[in-house]
Structures are given as C-alpha cells and as structure tokens.
C-alpha cells in the first residue's frame, strides 16, 4: 500500500507546500506502516531526486515538461494511485490542489478531506483534523473509505529533511487531455502568495486610503511578508479581493500575522485566528483585535509604521 503525494514545481525547485506534503506522506507512511512514498511531479522537474531528502522513496515525473491543467493532472494522478495501490493520496490544499483532489477522490472511490491541518489519528479508524467555520473551529472527521485523499493546508506541517534518497523515473502514463483552454495567465511575480506566506502584513480601514498602502508594502518587504487586507478595504476597492482575508475571503495561517488599522470583527478574526502569532496595531485600545492578539501596539498607524519600517529595514540585512 503506497502513499502518493502530488508535488508542484516552481521556477527554482518545489513549492514549499509540496515539501510539506512530501513530509506528511513520509510521516503517514511511517505511522501506518505503509509504503513506499511515491511523489508525482507536475511541471519541469529540476532535481527530482531531491524530494528523497523529504521522505520520498520514488519520484515519478508526469510526461511533458509543462505544468498540466488540474483536470489532466488529476486523471494522471488517479491512474498512478491505482497502479501503485495507494492507500492515501496527499495533495496541497491550495487552488491547484483543491481543483485536483475532488476528481482524484471520485475516481478512486476514496474518502476526501480538504483543509487538513494535522496528522491523521489512526489509533482507531482513520480520523483527520480539519479547519471548519472559516477558522473559528476544528473538526475531527472519520474517513470511512479504504482509500483516503487528503488536501493539507499550507503552513500546517513542519518540513522535515530525512536525508533519504529517491529513485526518479518517468511516470509512464499517457498525457491526459484537458478540457480547460487557458487564454491568459496573470501571475503576480516577485510577491509571496498569500496562502503560502509565513508572515503576512495586513491593513484595514484605519489606513484611510489606498494611497497609504506603501507603508504596508514597505513593512512587508522588510519582513519578507505577503500583504493582505480586511473586507471593507477590498469592498471599497482600495485593494484587490485576492488580498481579502476573513470569513468570506481567504483563510490563512501564517506564523505571524500583523494587523494594522483593523478592528477585529468576528468575520475577520475567523480568517486569521489560526495564525501562530498575531500582532495588532490600532489606535483604539478597545479594538476587539487586542483580545485575539499576542502582541499589540496602541497607537496611530501613521506614527508607528514609519518607525517600525525603519527598525525592520535596519535589521533585515
């Protein structure tokens, strides 16, 4: 019974979330005495054998050097999972992964769990922990089918280097066709994707207008962080909706979330409360965010931020 893990490449190597996924696959293999761990690579595989260092035993590279569309990748992944008698398929819970996982689960007649944030409990049955209610709670879910497909949330698992090595081979499957014709792609380059960021700097209505976002970006740059915003900010068009974190936006769980000029409404907190450490900067000492934060500064963002940016820039080199 193998563990299959889906690995996505970047220009320089592998997505961090994919290394997390390989680590998780290795750990599940160890705990359930399953194996081998088979990593399936989508995209230009640079140094495929390096996945061995995170716990893969075998690396299979999907045919063609380009990244396949989710539907094509799902078809090939499901075929490989079947060939390899997979007990579990691990996929990142990012946009690509969430487009792939349901199709793979359906094809394999497997139980599907998305938004998985911890290792499964296999002491009795097979239970996984998921984030639910947009970060307001967690749930343990029993997966009943023999085969499981887990979409794991980025930043939920620590990457471990096992020092192992992997064999590398072509996946040996026919290229599956895609029914999606890509017309144009608009990727933000040079910025850290919000869902994978370890540090997020976020601005709210207290920033007073889009023209003041330079400060948010400067602080983010000094800290190596992604930028985000609250719902009113995206509703007013100050920032793109793709930056909106909260219950009706994106749920994130970075190591550090810095909220500036955000009051901390329950819907906003829902999307960020899983962050390991939360900093609130707000001039209103009664702002609800201070109750959800680990560190706080009661002060005017326009006075605090320049000093903070200067201090962060001075120490970032």
């Amino acid at each position, binding site marked *: 019974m193998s563990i299959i893990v889906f690995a996505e490449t970047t220009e320089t190597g592998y997505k961090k979330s994919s290394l997390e996924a390989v680590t998780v696959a290795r750990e599940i293999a160890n705990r359930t005495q399953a194996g081998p761990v088979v990593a399936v690579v989508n995209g230009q595989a640079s140094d495929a054998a390096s996945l061995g260092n995170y716990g893969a035993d075998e690396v299979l590279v999907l045919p063609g050097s380009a990244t396949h569309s989710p539907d094509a990748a799902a078809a090939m992944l499901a075929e490989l999972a079947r060939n390899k008698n997979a007990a579990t398929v691990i996929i990142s819970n990012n946009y690509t992964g969430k487009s792939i996982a349901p199709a793979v*689960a359906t094809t394999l007649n497997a139980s599907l769990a998305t938004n998985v944030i911890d290792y499964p409990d296999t002491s009795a049955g097979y239970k996984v922990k998921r984030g639910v209610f947009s970060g307001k709670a967690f749930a343990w879910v029993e997966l009943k089918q023999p085969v499981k497909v887990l979409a794991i949330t980025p930043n939920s698992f620590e990457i471990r280097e096992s020092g192992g090595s992997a064999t590398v081979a072509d996946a040996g499957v026919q290229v599956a066709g895609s029914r999606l014709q890509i017309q144009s792609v608009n990727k933000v380059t040079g910025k850290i994707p919000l869902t994978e960021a370890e540090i997020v700097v976020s601005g709210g209505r207290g920033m007073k207008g889009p023209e003041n976002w330079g400060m948010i970006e400067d602080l983010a740059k000094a800290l190596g962080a992604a930028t985000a915003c609250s719902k009113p900010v995206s509703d007013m068009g100050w920032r793109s909706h793709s930056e909106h974190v909260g219950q009706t936006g994106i749920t994130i769980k970075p190591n550090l979330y810095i909220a500036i000029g955000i009051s901390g409404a329950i819907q906003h907190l829902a999307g960020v409360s899983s962050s390991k450490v939360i900093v609130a900067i707000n001039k209103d000492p009664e702002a609800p965010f201070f109750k959800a934060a680990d560190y706080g500064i009661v002060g005017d963002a326009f006075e605090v931020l320049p000093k903070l940016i200067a201090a962060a820039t001075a120490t970032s080199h």
Partner: protein
Amino acid sequence: MKILVCISVVPDTTTKISFTDNNTRFNNQGVQYIINPYDELALTRAMELAEASNGTVHVIHVGTADSEASIRKALSIGAHEAIRVNAEPADAQFVAAQIAAVAQNAGYDLILTGRESIDYNGGAVCGLLGQLLGIPSVNVASKIDVSAGTATVEHDIDGGREVVTVQLPAVISAQKDLCEPRIPNMRGIMAARTKPLQITEPGAATAASGYVAFELPAPKQGVKLIDAENPAELLYLLRNEAKVI
C-alpha cells in the same frame, strides 16, 4: 440556457461558534441561517446569464425542511424552480452525489456552486460534480461569461488569476467580484410563494466521512502591549520571544 445553482445553508457570518453533546455537534441554538454568501453570488450571476439568454435558473439544496426559508429566499431573488433533496448534508461527497443524481440527464448547460461553504469549508462540491457528471469544472471564478456554448471564466490560481474557456455543460464555483448579490424585492418575495419547490428523497449514496468531534481554538494568553514610541521592541520580541521573524 438552463442553469442549476447549488445552495448551501450556513450560520450567519456573525455567529459565535459553539458545540454541544460533548463537542460532537454544532450548537444551533439561536443561530440565524443564511444562504451561503458565495452561493448567493452564484445565484445572482446565474440570474444575469439567464436573463441575457432567456434561460431558466433552478436551485438545488441538500438538506432538511429547516432550510426552506432560505430556499424561498433563493426563489425570491429570481430562481424559477427549487429542488430540495430531503437529507442531512453529511459531507461534500454525499451532497455532490445527490446533486449529480438530480442533474444527470436533466439538460443543464451550466451548474454553479459557491467556492466553499463558510461552515464546513470543503470547497469540493464543484470538482466532485464535474467528475461525477463527466463535465469540466472550474474553481473560484470571479468572472463568468457565456457565448455560443462556451464559458469564459476568470478564476484564481496559485499566485494569480487566469482566464480559461470551457465547453458547456460545465460546473463553475463562484467567489467575490463575480457580481453584487441581489436583494429580493417585494414582487420577488410574493412570486416566490407560488414557485415550484420540489422535494425529492435522497438516492443511494452514502457519506464517505463523518464528523466525530469539534474543538475550539485555544484561547489567547492575553496581549502583550508595546509602547507606541518604541516599535523596535516589537521586532525584538517577535525575533527572540515568539521566534517568528
């Protein structure tokens, strides 16, 4: 064009979440239920597309009779007919299987869902339906246009957005930016009372998973305040105490 919109009914976004029965069940005491906000966007866009093509919009919901007020709201927003599959929505795979059973051979050109429900956050029904029905699926759309049997969809991908085209029939999940949700007017509310709401019993599908327990996040230890005159102290603490930078 014939469009099916999948509606989930969820606790209002301001709900304080708690659990009962030894943390095995969501405590719905005093909870206001609403149409899942993303599904409402899907419904509004469906209405716009149907109006432009002289089409029809059906809504489908898997749930108990408790949801009927929300289904009537969907009808008052403008959906022509509603279908309720009379079953507890046990998990995404169960719900998708029920919807697929209804949609199979029903001639829908387009099926819309929300990007995820804001309660169980599965985000899977769109992709599950696509695979079950053998039609293409596109997740997290911020623009959907249809012409000559093809949908042009702008949607989120990791690190950006892309525009794709797919042949209909297809299933697409909706997110913000797609449209402004419609508020039902008095005429819509009156009309909704007499629109067909068909109740069907669930098919044979069984749930592939089951919720066994819930947890709330550990409460914060209390905020440590730093002097606004000395924000460098914050960086010191984040580096040396919290060890996150």
